[in-house]
């Protein structure tokens, strides 16, 4: 198993490195020069873009259009920023049944209001699959809404404190929720909880600590209360290393996670390698303690000015003490930034169970369209 996995990793990195081009700033291309706050207003990334993020969105797109809300044609008061995301996909899915499928992924708007020199409020609202028995009140709801205090407004470093509903800050924080490090790694789709996060961002390091409680209103997938901490040190201009830990407790079980993250931006060829490896001990009452490994190795590279290639390898072993319970995924994503608002993505996955020895092959090949308002 180890040898085959090592060969697959080498092949994936080689595939990405073989494509010509250059690396540039993008949320998946964090380096010493680009923390999450280098582009985003949130210390954990995602959501509203800052001035530099808007400039980068324009710079990397094929037809560099104005990156502001509605191309800058709709003006809002200086204290209010609006935005949103529309996303859908269509293509082939093998589950292992072979299907053609089309589905919306995201229909979501957001607003950020500046409430004071250091205080802001962020709220998003989106159409979702509704709660059974409560359809009228849940056809749309807010994944994230929080108050944020920022020590140095207008800067990308310093202390941040957030309180409200958001995803606990943990791991590489990839957008792609099917990756194992999200699905089984503590931050699944709709895994937002109510909590408080204290975060410090510095060009040389960053630390995020979150305490969280399960949603008392909606029975969303995360039923646990807990705490998470992740820290990252940029020990060289192109290399950062980090560590993470999370504890969660829910009726009948407790989960302890520890992990390591690394980001290494190679110079020649220009390539960003990102790694996250987690070890989880799940204590199930009255008996059972499966120890799990969840890992992702992701190589990202701009192959032309507006085309970003990601090649990822995921590993999830749901019980390291039992043979034949691991699964592996090879993910390939090609992002084309047509304009600063429109992104077309070709995304594919091949997934095996114990390299084909423990169950059927599955995967997908999807075309995805993303429009950022």
């Amino acid at each position: 198993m180890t040898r085959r996995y090592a060969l697959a990793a080498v092949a994936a990195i080689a595939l990405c490195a073989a494509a010509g081009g250059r690396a540039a700033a993008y949320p998946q291309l964090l380096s010493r020069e680009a923390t999450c706050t280098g582009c985003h207003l949130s210390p954990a990334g995602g959501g509203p873009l800052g001035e530099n993020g808007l400039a980068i969105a324009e710079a990397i797109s094929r037809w560099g259009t104005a990156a502001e809300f509605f191309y800058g044609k709709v003006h809002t008061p200086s204290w209010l920023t609006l935005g949103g995301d529309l996303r859908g996909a269509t293509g082939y899915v093998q589950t292992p049944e072979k299907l053609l499928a089309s589905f919306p992924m995201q229909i979501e708007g957001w607003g950020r209001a500046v409430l004071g020199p250091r205080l802001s409020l962020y709220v998003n609202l989106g159409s979702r699959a509704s709660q059974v028995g409560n359809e009228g009140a849940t056809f749309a709801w807010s994944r994230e809404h929080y108050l944020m205090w920022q020590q140095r407004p207008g800067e990308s470093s310093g202390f941040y404190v957030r309180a409200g509903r958001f995803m606990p800050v943990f791991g590489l924080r990839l957008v792609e929720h099917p990756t194992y490090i999200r699905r089984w790694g503590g931050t699944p789709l709709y895994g937002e909880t109510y909590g408080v996060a204290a975060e410090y961002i510095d060009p040389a390091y960053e630390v995020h600590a979150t305490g969280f409680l399960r949603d008392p209103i909606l029975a969303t997938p995360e039923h646990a209360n807990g705490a998470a901490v992740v820290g990252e040190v940029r020990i060289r201009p192109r290399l950062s290393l980090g560590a993470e830990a999370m504890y969660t407790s829910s009726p009948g079980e407790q989960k302890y996670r520890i992990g390591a993250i690394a980001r290494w931006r190679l110079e020649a060829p220009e390539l960003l390698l990102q790694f996250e490896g987690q070890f989880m001990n799940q204590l199930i009452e009255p008996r059972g303690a499966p120890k799990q490994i969840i890992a992702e190795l992701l190589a990202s590279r701009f192959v032309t000015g507006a085309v970003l290639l990601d090649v990822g390898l995921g590993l999830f072993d749901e019980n390291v003490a039992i043979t034949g319970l691991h699964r592996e995924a090879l993910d390939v994503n090609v992002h084309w930034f047509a304009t600063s608002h429109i992104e077309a993505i070709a995304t594919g996955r091949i997934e095996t169970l114990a390299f084909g020895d423990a169950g059927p092959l599955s995967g997908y090949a999807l075309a995805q369209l993303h429009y950022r308002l």
Partner: protein
Amino acid sequence: MVGAMVRAVTIGRVVLAGLAALPACDQTENDRPPTLPYITLAILQPYCAQGVCHSSYRKESGYAFDTLDAARESLLIGRSGAATRLVNPDEPEASLLYTVLVRKIRRMPYDAPLPDKDIELVLRWIEQKAASDLGLAP
């Protein structure tokens, strides 16, 4: 700064070394406990109870497996007739909970087929413990 670098590298090496060593631990065959808590929290919850599937929020097809109570309730749906229940200890291999995991069409979980050993454990639980765990024993 140098001290911080050394500490960071040391911590990283220890963590990575620990992760790398884990797969080399002695592995055993499928000796996991076939109990309702284990089946629910180690298999059904992580694989089947995603946000828009068999969670208490969405209850796709009327079933939820994200908590032990929700799983117990779902597994008892159709209690009046064994043929409509998800588990049938009298005919384990005819239980819907088992057949949806192995059938060719609309196999579950639809986005992540289970490893054979998880399916074996679910079947073993239906055979050995489902009746007592769910209070179905005569």
